[in-house]
């Protein structure tokens, strides 16, 4: 059963619908810190948000956050590293957030309806590609993240 957000323009309402739909798909979900996101357990724990826009397209934003170890590289070195990741891989967006944590974002734009298959593939892809990057950059990320 597709998620149907036809004419839905309220992001909070859309996020609630998405959360309920994810539960129906069998995902383990729980409340996030706000009304505009929730936590979804895939291979990793994803913060899922949805920006509703019925006149353009809706977007699901899946974010994974890691604390940076206190004795890790300086912030500028992290910024160099995330830019290197961003320019090397066409997978997702890497950044250092305002709390100083390492953040990874995937974006799924869609029109009115979203199929379970596309969503599952999207989460599997996010899990898999992030795992690949973590493994390839174990030298930095293994020691640099908590």
């Amino acid at each position: 059963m597709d998620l149907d957000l036809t004419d839905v323009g309220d992001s909070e309402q859309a996020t609630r619908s998405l959360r309920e739909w994810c539960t129906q798909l069998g995902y383990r979900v729980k409340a996030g810190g706000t009304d505009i996101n929730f936590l979804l357990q895939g291979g990793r724990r994803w913060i899922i948000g949805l920006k509703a826009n019925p006149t353009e397209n809706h977007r699901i934003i899946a974010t994974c956050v890691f604390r940076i170890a206190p004795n890790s590289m300086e912030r500028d070195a992290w910024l160099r590293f995330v830019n290197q990741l961003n320019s090397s891989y066409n997978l997702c967006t890497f950044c250092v957030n305002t709390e100083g944590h390492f953040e990874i974002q995937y974006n799924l734009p869609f029109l009115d309806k979203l199929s379970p298959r596309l969503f599952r593939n999207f989460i599997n892809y996010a899990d898999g590609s992030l795992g690949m990057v973590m493994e390839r950059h174990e030298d930095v990320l293994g020691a640099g993240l908590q």
Partner: protein
Amino acid sequence: MTLQFDDENDEAQATAALAGWAEQLGFRLTRNEAGGRFTLHGRYNYSIWVAGTAGFRRIVCIANFAGCKNHRDPEGKLRFANKLNLDYNVSKVSFNSQGDLYFEFVLYVEASLTPSLWSTFFAKADDGITWVFGRHKDELAELID
């Protein structure tokens, strides 16, 4: 006129199918870039290719802007890219080793793509870049030519 990707298509064939379909929809493009990519010409030029396989394909679209050769603050440049990535989660922004600025947009599809999703996706990409350019005019004037 929905584009149906053939399950048997590899990435290069899927990219060629997308190019042909976009042309039929009236998009202006140049084919035969290295690696099978094509360039879609609109408000901005996007280098486009299809990655992935049957059932889950990623359409990767990159708008590239030549970096300013006289820029002398590489750390400031990285802080700026990071800020854009944090503040606006529509596209990915990065600088390559030559200092060029990249905006990258990704559209995920199953076996088919509708003209309305494709068109709204590009309109959103165009508007996103224009919005960033307007909002960060001063910083960008120093970073790109």
